[in-house]
């Protein structure tokens, strides 16, 4: 159970030439600058576009293969798609929008509407079931779109910038909800996003697309450690740590804990800028609340600065001056103390 795709598509000035492999139950984020081919890639997987060369295989079923003259149209792919602009049918109520896919997959009207209501209830929209899309807020509309995509129980879930049309106040809540649904989702999920926070919160793995090609793939921490391009460095330049908050203490999923000003409670993402991480040869005194021992994994000079990868719990990337590298003798294998002030850590509900 998995998705294997290699796609060569020429659309105007864009030449997409990307290969991708995703296991069932895995959620990956497709990130990259504007015009990199992210949406084109989703279109290929959905069957709204055909590959010029390559092959798309889902759960051992060939969906697109020009060499074998195979093309399965979107309506026959086990698919759920959430669009950036939602694309709810304006003439149908929320519940009928969600029931649409169930009806198309052969359920009778009554069953389809009942299950659609269940899905709306699950997403906290029971009261809006009869509303037309025009009467919904951006966040509500995006929830309906998510319910509509999930209701027919797809094997392949494609989300195109699912949070970008949602206003900031509703975003954190929706992101958390989306994460919950993705964790429960048994099939293959792909999320296109330009926001590293969304990528880290929603996906197990990132695939970076630039100018139609996959330039890098891996967990955000791997990308941050060895960015393959300037864009990746900017994207993954910050340390993103996932954990569970309890007031001012965040227990990190990967081990270790951080003190922060206040993170409330529940799952959070902690963002630590590399410039906020200080390295010391001896245990530092003073105010930093977060101090732990680590070991230098690597040093990547960037002009007068250097990015230092430090292993430990947690592992982090620190940005220090080239002078500090020389002064502290930072080199792979060297033991250091890592310090971060609690006030330098931002947390987001994740």
């Amino acid at each position: 159970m998995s998705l294997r795709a290699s796609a060569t598509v020429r659309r105007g000035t864009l030449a997409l030439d990307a290969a991708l492999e995703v296991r069932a139950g895995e959620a990956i984020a497709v990130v990259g600058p504007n015009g990199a081919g992210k949406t084109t890639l989703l279109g290929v997987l959905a069957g709204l576009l055909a590959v010029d060369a390559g092959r798309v295989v889902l759960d051992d079923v060939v969906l697109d293969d020009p060499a074998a003259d195979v093309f399965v149209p979107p309506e026959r792919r086990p698919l759920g798609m959430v669009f950036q602009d939602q694309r709810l049918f304006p003439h149908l109520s929320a519940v009928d929008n969600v029931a649409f896919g169930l009806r198309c997959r052969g359920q009778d009207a009554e069953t389809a509407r009942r299950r659609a209501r269940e899905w709306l209830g699950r997403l906290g929209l029971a009261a809006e079931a009869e509303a037309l899309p025009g009467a919904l807020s951006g966040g509500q509309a995006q929830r309906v779109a998510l319910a509509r995509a999930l209701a027919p129980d797809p094997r392949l879930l494609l989300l195109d910038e699912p949070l970008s049309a949602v206003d900031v106040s509703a975003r954190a809540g929706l992101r958390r909800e989306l994460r919950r649904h993705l964790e429960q989702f048994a099939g293959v999920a792909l999320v296109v996003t330009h926001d590293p926070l969304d990528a880290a919160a929603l996906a197990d793995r990132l695939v970076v697309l630039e100018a139609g090609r996959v330039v890098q793939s891996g967990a955000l921490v791997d990308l941050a450690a060895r960015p393959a391009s300037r864009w990746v460095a900017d994207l993954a330049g910050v340390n993103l740590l996932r954990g569970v908050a309890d007031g001012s203490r965040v227990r990190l999923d990967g081990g270790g804990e951080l003190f922060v000003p206040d993170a409330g409670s529940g799952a959070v993402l902690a963002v630590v800028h590399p410039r906020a991480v200080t390295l010391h040869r001896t245990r530092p005194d003073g105010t930093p609340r977060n101090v732990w021992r680590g070991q230098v994994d690597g040093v990547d000079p960037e002009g007068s600065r250097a990015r230092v990868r430090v292993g430990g719990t947690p592992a982090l990337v620190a940005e220090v001056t080239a002078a500090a590298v020389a002064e502290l003798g930072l080199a792979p294998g060297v033991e250091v103390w890592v310090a971060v002030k609690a006030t330098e850590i931002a947390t987001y509900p994740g």
Partner: protein
Amino acid sequence: MTPRSRTPPARVPVAVVVLAGVGAALFVVPLLALLWRTPWALARQALFAPEALAALRVSLVCSLSATALSVLLGLPLAWVQARTEFPGRDLLRGVTMLPVVLPPVVGGVALLLAFGRRGIAGQWLEAWFGLRLPFTIPGAVLAETFVAMPFFVLTLEGGLRSADRDLEDAARTLGATPWVVFRRVTLPLVRPSLLAGAVLSWARALGEFGATITFAGNVPGRTQTMPLAVYAALESRPEAGIVLSVVLLGISLAVLVALRRRWLAVA
């Protein structure tokens, strides 16, 4: 006290105002004359005369049938023109458009040559199905459809072009076959154009004169429609012709009111 808001006085050339006034008078004066000279006392009598009632019936039957036929055939035609690419599509669009600019009497002559008893298609229709079109009600329906359908096709084609294709893509990702997409997404989206196109083609069919009289004749009680009855009445009983004209004017005004949002409202 807040000063009254002022706008600079509009400066319009006098010649433009005069010509615009003449232009408007060209529409207004004849319509006023029609209402002014209507023998209202005789209206009931003229309207309920057997010939008038027969003409009204023939007109309604023919124009509504022509509208139904225009929707039935024009919908697929508009869809093909708006949504598919094939060589000769522009030519097809031109041919569809032609009856709008063609003198209706020429259309009538062409219909006679095609579907008349000795027409290139008509002789087979009669030989195989015993179907005779000229000077019959179906013939009048055909003539009116010929003239009216382009209005439906053009209106709907515009609607189909501006309909949101992204919504159709969304429907396909939900498992909708092309037919389901058309029925449950496209059709509801173009409903306003569909209604406007149907009303417009109905109005055109109702007023049809040239093609109908050429192809279907002017047989009172059989193929004589309202416009033909008006013309015939003016020779013998002018007051009846005027009353029937006012009826047609009333219908046209009703159509205009029904569609005012579409054409008269400025965004």
